[in-house]
């Protein structure tokens, strides 16, 4: 329960900055509205006789809406803030539905959906509307004390910034890729090949560099003045904070500790990530798509990279930062980090499921016989599936023909490890399955 007095103080603290946040949103949409309306109004959403409602009008409505939100914030009392805040029923609904599985599968599904419907999502008005929605969601959520507490931690603020930068650049690259793919389909050169002129580095490049440096320096100084670097209690080896988290860029690896042995999660998998990244140029047999944005000319490379980067690396960092609380339990974004929320359910290994639950026997004593189901499954997964893919699936057959078996085997090994991760995560959450192969005697748990 939220204490009404402290909530009032909290509202008094944040209402000013939040008001300015909405002022910025208002200004952004006013500019967008002016640009669109002066340029003809954009696409019509509704048109009957003289009555016409276009994209430009929509941005105008959004600007008015955000202006009202700003005024409500500046009034700085709980009753006015209630107009801005995410409604309680929505927060409860979101928290209830947030689970590791929904989060991970939802994000992967959303990425896949945006990839498949990229022609729709790259349109600038759609992207602009999405940006507005996400910023409104952020602003409305910041009125929640729990959400605010996590997001406003000094080290977490850059992560929020990174999410928007990644969103923007992913959109920009996809926007250009879709244009290029259309051009290539028509037999035209990609956008990047239209201008073949050369130019002198002085002044054209050195000035870009100078302006970038000055702009970023200014940004950094403002950032340093507004946001203080964190400094907690002095280091104390006798007192372990709960949760203890690695620096934010390693939180994906820390998350892996839940699903793998430490030597796999902390040493082998990071090593495979590094090895796999370095190996990319030698494993990609496709000579196309150098020097311009494209998806259609290299769909496999694009999908695999986005799956690994946005779908796993970034997704796990966000989960580790915002959704993992005390005891590494999973919390919804509006949930209080309750130390007593226990997530330590009993987990079982595949051998338990196979021998005890399916066959109704005791676990055999011979290690390899005991772990036989998991070993067979992993052999099928890591060896059988790649062979099947190389024989049956046209895409992989072509890759195999281009790469030869050693490169193909390395590529498939890396790919299968990547795909194993979400499988293992969901199996852990939904089936309480800890390890497919559990041989603690040899420190070999998979």
């Amino acid at each position, binding site marked *: 329960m939220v204490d009404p007095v402290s909530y009032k103080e909290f509202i008094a603290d944040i209402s000013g900055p939040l008001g300015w946040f909405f002022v910025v949103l208002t200004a952004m949409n006013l500019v967008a509205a002016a640009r669109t309306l002066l340029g003809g109004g954009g696409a019509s959403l509704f048109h009957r006789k003289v009555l016409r409602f276009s994209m430009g009008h929509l941005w105008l409505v959004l600007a008015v809406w955000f202006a009202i939100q700003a005024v409500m914030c500046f009034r700085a009392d709980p009753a006015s803030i209630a107009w801005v805040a995410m409604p309680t029923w929505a927060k409860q609904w979101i928290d209830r539905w947030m689970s590791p599985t929904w989060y991970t599968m939802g994000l992967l599904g959303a990425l896949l959906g945006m990839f498949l419907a990229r022609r729709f999502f790259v349109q600038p008005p759609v992207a602009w509307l999405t940006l507005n929605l996400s910023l409104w969601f952020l602003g409305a959520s910041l009125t929640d004390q729990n959400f605010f507490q996590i997001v406003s931690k000094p080290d977490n603020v850059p992560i929020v910034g990174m999410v928007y930068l990644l969103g923007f650049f992913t959109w920009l690259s996809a926007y250009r890729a879709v244009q290029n793919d259309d051009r290539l389909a028509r037999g035209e050169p990609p956008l990047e090949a239209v201008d073949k002129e050369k130019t002198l*580095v002085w002044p054209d490049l050195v000035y870009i*560099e100078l302006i970038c440096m000055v702009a970023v320096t200014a940004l950094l100084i403002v950032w340093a003045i507004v946001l203080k670097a964190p*400094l907690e209690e002095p280091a104390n080896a006798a007192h372990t904070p709960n949760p*203890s988290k690695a620096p934010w860029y390693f939180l994906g690896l820390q998350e892996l500790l839940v699903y793998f042995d430490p030597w796999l999660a902390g040493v082998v998998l990071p090593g495979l990530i590094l090895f796999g990244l370095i190996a990319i140029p030698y494993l990609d047999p496709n000579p196309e798509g150098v020097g311009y*944005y494209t998806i259609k000319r290299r769909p496999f490379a694009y999908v695999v990279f986005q799956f690994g980067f946005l779908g796993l690396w970034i997704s796990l960092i966000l989960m580790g930062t915002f959704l993992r609380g005390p005891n590494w339990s999973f919390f919804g974004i509006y949930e209080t980090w309750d130390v007593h929320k226990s997530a330590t359910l009993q987990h079982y290994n595949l051998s338990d499921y196979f021998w005890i639950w399916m066959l109704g026997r005791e676990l055999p004593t011979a290690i390899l016989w005991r772990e036989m189901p998991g070993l067979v499954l992993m052999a099928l997964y890591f060896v059988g599936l790649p062979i099947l893919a190389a024989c049956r699936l046209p895409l992989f057959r072509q890759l195999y023909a281009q790469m030869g078996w050693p490169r193909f085997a390395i590529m498939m090994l890396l790919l299968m490890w990547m795909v194993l991760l979400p499988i293992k995560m969901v199996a852990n959450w939904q089936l309480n399955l800890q390890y497919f192969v559990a041989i603690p005697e040899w420190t070999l748990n998979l």
Partner: protein
Amino acid sequence: MPSFGEKLRNSQVYKSIFRHPLPLDRRHRVLVILTNFFLHLHPVSIRRQGIALSYTWCMGGLTFFFFLVETVTGVLLMFYYRPVAEHAYGDMLALRDATSMGILRELHRWGAHAMVIAVWLHTYRVFLTGSYKKPREFNWGVGVILLMLTLLLSFTGYLLPWDQLAMWAVTVGSNMARATPLLGQEGPGAALLTVDGIDLITSASDARFALLGARFVGENALLRFYVLHCVAIPLGAALLMAIHFWRVRKDGGISGPL
């Protein structure tokens, strides 16, 4: 009457420093790149499309710029900071309260976060434009190592404030080294390395011990991380950056469609 500027540019001192007149015409715009140490990293001319912001995002350049920011602010921080357990935290407080402006540590920390994000975005752009392909395979690999060094720079710096956040983040991170196969005390195969029944890999001789200089995160770890953070990793990164930039030129400059 020559103006003051003209007089200055015709003086012996000016001419000894700058090897060319102001780059106002084409000839001298070429020469300025060729004869200036700081500018000779660049080619003289470049495809106009190759430097468009919508293509490069400027992220590689910004990563390098953040490295420079970190170097400058880092050197300044070293004036105030002592990497010993009894002083480190107090120096943090003094940096906040007693130095003018008091944003030195902020500049350094946010610059570090920005460098991590910029290097990821740079890698992202290079992948999306297929710029790792022949003949740039090797330089992509150098870039991946540089990315890793960026993370390690940030990680080693994370310990230095010597507060709870620092100590436990590094404890979580360095615990993984304990599980290194063969070389970690709790890693698989560590028991194989024994001579005449004496274990070679113990909590006082394994990979984690090498990193921390002790069995736990303490004053030895603080000193080691400080030296790694301020000397060893920056030197390695500087060397690799030199190779990285040199290879960008040798491998055909910024990528573009054939």
